């Protein structure tokens, strides 16, 4: 009995340690946010597509530097997941999606304030794992039987774009998996579980050297437009408009171009 109690305590301690370790990063952010609030600071919440993780994080830092007392919090994820959350009433100020179709689901429900603006274009490239380097040089090579290819789920913008590109090239691919978003595809290739996958050019840049990017002409048929909008229920509409202006500004263009985005 005593032993069982001790086991439980051990399990609880483990649970607590795990929870703390996982909450670690979040705690720091919350700490900042509450400290900001004490000084009368404000928090801007931006929901953005997973492929914008790196660029928007650095734009967020620039925004905070230009607006003392303001904290920018990001929710990065699959565009359609974020769109669902916004429609269900998530308290976000700005939404940046990886496809116009996804933005439309938000705008159609009246959740966007004003017309969404296109701020960038992304292109698909083939991400090739280190071990498979050289095996893939064109879209056609993805049809190879002994090659493990992962794609995005058809529901995700990247899956939709992949479908268009493959149709344009007349290539039939049998993927081993259809992942939930583009970062999941990249992870599978990065870890070497898959030999190749279709991701955005910006994702390959972000994976700095861990995967090789192979450009292919058919990607012209499958570009993604990235729209951004201030949300109708934004708790901080002023800051939200300013953030959108920053993204559309020359500074925003530069950061986006460095990451591999094309101007719209």
């Amino acid at each position, binding site marked *: 009995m005593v032993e069982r109690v001790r086991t439980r305590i051990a*399990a609880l301690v483990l649970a607590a340690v795990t929870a703390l370790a996982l909450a670690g990063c979040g705690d720091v952010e919350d700490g900042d946010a509450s400290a900001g609030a004490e000084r009368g600071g404000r928090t801007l919440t931006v929901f953005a597509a997973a492929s914008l993780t790196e660029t928007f994080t650095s734009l967020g830092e620039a925004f905070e530097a230009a607006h003392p007392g303001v904290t920018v919090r990001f929710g990065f994820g699959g565009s359609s*997941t974020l769109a669902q959350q916004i429609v269900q009433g998530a308290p976000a100020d700005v939404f940046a999606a990886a496809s116009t179709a996804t933005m439309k689901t938000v705008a159609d429900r009246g959740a966007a304030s004003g017309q969404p603006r296109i701020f960038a274009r992304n292109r698909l490239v083939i991400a090739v794992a280190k071990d498979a380097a050289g095996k893939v040089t064109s879209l056609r090579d993805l049809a190879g039987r002994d090659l493990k290819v992962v794609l995005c789920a058809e529901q995700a913008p990247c899956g939709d774009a992949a479908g268009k590109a493959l149709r344009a090239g007349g290539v039939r691919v049998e993927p081993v998996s259809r992942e939930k978003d583009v970062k999941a595809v990249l992870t599978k290739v990065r870890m070497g579980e898959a030999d190749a996958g279709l991701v955005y050019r910006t994702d390959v840049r972000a994976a700095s050297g861990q995967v090789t990017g192979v450009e292919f002409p058919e990607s012209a048929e499958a570009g993604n437009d990235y729209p951004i909008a201030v949300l109708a229920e934004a708790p901080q509409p002023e800051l939200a408009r300013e953030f959108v202006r920053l993204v559309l500004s020359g500074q925003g263009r530069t950061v986006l171009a460095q990451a591999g985005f094309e101007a719209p």
Partner: protein
Amino acid sequence: MRAPAGGASPERGFGRRPPWMLVLPALVGLGFLVLPPAGLLLRAPWSTLGTRLADPRVLEALRLSLLTATAATGVCLVLGVPLAWVLARVPFPGARLVRALVTVPLVLPPVVGGVALLLVLGRRGLVGQWLDAAFGVTLPFTTAGVVLAQTFVAMPFLVISVEGALRAADLRYEEAAATLGATRWTVFRRVTLPLVAPGVLAGAVLCWARALGEFGATITFAGSFPGRTETMPLAVYLALETDPEAAVVLSLVLLAVSVLVLTALRDRWLDVA
């Protein structure tokens, strides 16, 4: 066996009102557990239910879920019951640590479990690369991978439940069998196992239910492909992205099947005990 000990108390409490300090939180707890599934029923698109259920992808995902959860429960039984027996009956140094380690998958977020599985059993994993080189076997993206992911998250439920049953069981029966000349293996098979059968069954049911609902470790380790690795929870998640109504229908199917199986098992189990 336990009847004489518990027999007196129901009589003593009979006729008295249960204290509100227990009844009130019990009702709140019940409501909290029952309302969300009830919400699924209320919001279900009943008019289009028939056509949505006829979608071959739904049946495919359901078949895969039932198959993998059952296989995972089988693996858990084969490995977990002996593990529970060793933990309960064989004293060894560090037993307490081992017992804590067994419960790690319980507290680990399933996605982390999936990453851990990739690092060990993935194509470039510690064990996985050897499996690939020696036998040409790779586990990620396969149905076997789904079973592995489910086994990883579900086995602790079985081990804890069986170990508890073993500790509660009366050791004198095993001792009697041993004095009559039975080997330890025979004792386990003929005395211990029948004695803890209800505990094993309860553990197996928990294990199956956990495997059926498994999402995080599966999508991380096995990926998602219809008919091969896309189980019901994965299908629900993907459907939620574009077609929330379809996600509700899929959830209802999963709910109905699990409730059906669990009540059937429960009735059976109660008959036995």
